[in-house]
């Protein structure tokens, strides 16, 4: 058994976590600094891959490392029973069938809808132990940032790059700059990982991270579970960053241990030794630093149509004139689209629907948190609610823990795993004008259905909105329970 490769710096200069992972994956550096970066895991779904596989076919190329390529249909799949045998929408069916055919023809690892392990690609990867610390992980999907929670360099790529990775197991890259986001101290009751990640975007804006890889650190980040860390990193892309990272620690190792594709025995020991070197050295340089006190973060919601439109739930809908430059027009457009009146309290905004799920908040802890609020309660009359577990295994576990029953007793629909309403490519969509409290990641115009209105928030805040029928401060519900 060879010694694990040392992460000792090639120069004496202290390095960031990003620098270390980058250095260990450079295959080739051109004179102009363009690098060929080796990719350890390539995740594939049905929407952004058909043209890439077709490209391989047309050029007679093969998938270089099918054993490192993991495919799962998630965006298009209905979340209702019977989907194993038939998908009504013809285009969705063609796309899922294309993935089926491509996965089998090119011999990549595949979890079809008939497999209990099927789910949202960013939930399946960590769950099956494909995602491990120190790896490079890519997928034709911007929320690949999720995997950064393990201290893996993970980011979304376009379809041309999907084809490039399939053919060469590498990606042509220039290095990003380093950005540190530190969340100090403790979070207050009712404040979650989702509130952290939204609060950061609220502070930096959706372009604040452009050109950077963010490392999240600080006590409040260390205190989060692995699932909470995935929620934080998932939305790094919403802040414009190429990727988000959190240094691996004992929680990370404990999460990975025993997963189907995690190393075992001596390989595990060697891996942990290597992983323990994955941290930012004292004195390493960051090009940009943001610090937020954990205690300053409130339970938040979005009011507009950009993830940067974040406010504490206790706030009021802003006026367009509160903003500057091009944002004035954008804010007015958002206010109009969202059907809101400036100055109104956010807690007076009524909702028609509640969506709990997505790669941001579709894991077991998210469902436990929401069910904890909903237990023994009913959804407000007229509100429709949908819970979509992130994978078949999350769904099974939630059923075994009795969470599914709590959701159903409260009046929610209990669905099969997939991306669902988060982007509405399957039949789960909002109607025009319909307003939704959602645990997903994007509140863009039309995202959940043409004319649909999305307010992003944490699972417990979504559960609170379901009970009252309007945006609600979770702390008020918690006070009732106490």
């Amino acid at each position, binding site marked *: 058994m*060879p010694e694990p*490769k040392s992460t000792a710096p090639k120069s004496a200069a202290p390095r960031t976590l990003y620098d270390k992972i980058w250095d260990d994956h450079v*295959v*080739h550096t*051109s004179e102009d600094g*363009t690098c*060929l970066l*080796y990719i*350890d895991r390539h995740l594939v779904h049905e*929407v*952004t891959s058909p043209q890439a596989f*077709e490209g391989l076919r047309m050029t007679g*190329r093969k998938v*270089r490392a099918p054993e490192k390529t993991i495919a799962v249909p998630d*965006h298009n799949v209905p979340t209702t029973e019977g989907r194993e045998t038939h998908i009504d*929408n013809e*285009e*969705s069916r*063609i*796309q899922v069938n*294309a993935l089926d055919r491509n996965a089998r023809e090119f011999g990549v690892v595949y979890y079809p809808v008939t497999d209990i392990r099927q789910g949202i690609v960013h939930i399946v990867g960590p769950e099956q132990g494909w995602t491990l610390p*120190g*790896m490079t992980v890519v997928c*034709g*999907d*911007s929320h690949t940032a999720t995997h950064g929670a393990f201290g893996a360099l993970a980011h*979304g*790529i*376009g*379809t*041309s*790059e999907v084809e*490039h990775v399939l*053919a*060469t*197991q*590498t990606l*042509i890259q*220039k290095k990003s700059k380093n950005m540190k986001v530190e969340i100090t101290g403790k979070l207050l009751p009712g404040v979650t990982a989702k509130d952290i990640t939204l609060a950061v975007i609220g502070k930096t804006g*959706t*372009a604040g991270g*452009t050109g950077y890889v963010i490392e999240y650190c600080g006590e409040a980040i260390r205190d989060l579970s692995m699932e909470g860390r995935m929620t934080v990193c998932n939305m790094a892309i919403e802040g*414009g960053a190429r990727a988000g990272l959190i240094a691996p620690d004992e929680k990370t190792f404990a999460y990975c241990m025993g997963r189907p594709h995690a*190393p075992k025995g001596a390989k*595990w020991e060697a891996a942990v030794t290597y992983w323990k070197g994955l941290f930012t050295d004292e004195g390493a340089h960051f090009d940009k630093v943001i610090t937020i006190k954990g205690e300053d973060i409130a339970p938040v919601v979005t009011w507009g149509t*950009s993830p*940067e439109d974040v406010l504490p739930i206790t706030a009021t809908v802003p006026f367009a004139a509160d903003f500057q*430059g*091009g*944002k004035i*027009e*954008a804010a007015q457009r958002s206010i109009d689209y969202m059907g809101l009146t400036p100055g109104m309290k956010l807690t007076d905004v009524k909702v028609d629907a509640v969506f709990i799920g997505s790669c941001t908040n579709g894991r077991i802890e998210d469902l436990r948190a929401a069910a904890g609020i909903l237990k023994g309660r009913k959804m407000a009359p007229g509100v429709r609610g949908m819970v979509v577990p992130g994978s078949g295994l999350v769904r099974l576990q939630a059923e075994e823990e009795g969470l599914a029953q709590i959701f159903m007793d409260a009046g929610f629909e209990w669905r099969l795993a997939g991306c669902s309403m988060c*982007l*509405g490519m399957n039949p789960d969509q909002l109607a025009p004008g319909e307003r939704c409290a959602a645990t997903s990641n994007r509140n*863009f*115009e*039309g*995202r959940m259905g*043409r*004319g649909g209105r999305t307010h992003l928030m944490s699972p417990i805040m979504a559960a609170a909105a379901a009970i009252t029928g309007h945006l609600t401060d979770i702390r008020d519900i918690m006070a009732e329970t106490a």
Partner: protein
Amino acid sequence: MDKFTTITGIAAPMPLVNIDTDMIIPKQFLKTIKRSGLGVNLFDEMRYTQDGKEIPDFVLNQPAYRESQIIVAGDNFGCGSSREHAPWALLDFGIRSVISTSFADIFYNNCFKNGILPIILPQDAVDHLMDDAKKGANARITVDLENQTVTASDGTSFAFEVDAFKKHCLINGLDDIGLTMEKVSAIDSFEKQNAAARPWA
């Protein structure tokens, strides 16, 4: 991929900030398994009513802008989803260059893979070009990749930066995969060394 050298054309002004890829090409059009044919659905929900009628106010529906080859856009163009369908739709419509103060990372890279040149310029330059674009067919903007300049109809010229490798690929219409395949021995040796050093990966 089409080569990109110089284009002179009408530019559509889209000053809205944070135009995301869901706006550029909404999800219902991502179900295609082809790259072509998306131009008709470019900016679909801004461009057409629910029943498919053109919204006359939308810039690309105005007679002067139907033949646009350039878009001058607000900050952070192309944010959100990684969908390459966004540049495919722009290209299919006929857009070869987008000018803004900033672009989202993935969209920016995706453009170069499809013969579209995204150009980052300072705010005052974008403001100047935005005013020019608002003149419609009365103004033509020239984008010269070789010399890295954008020239407004009044002759004002702005220099822009572009990565040398990306420029080389765009000017020559080169296929990245073919170029990387030439380095296959470096990939082979990396894999061998990596398998020894990090056998779990």
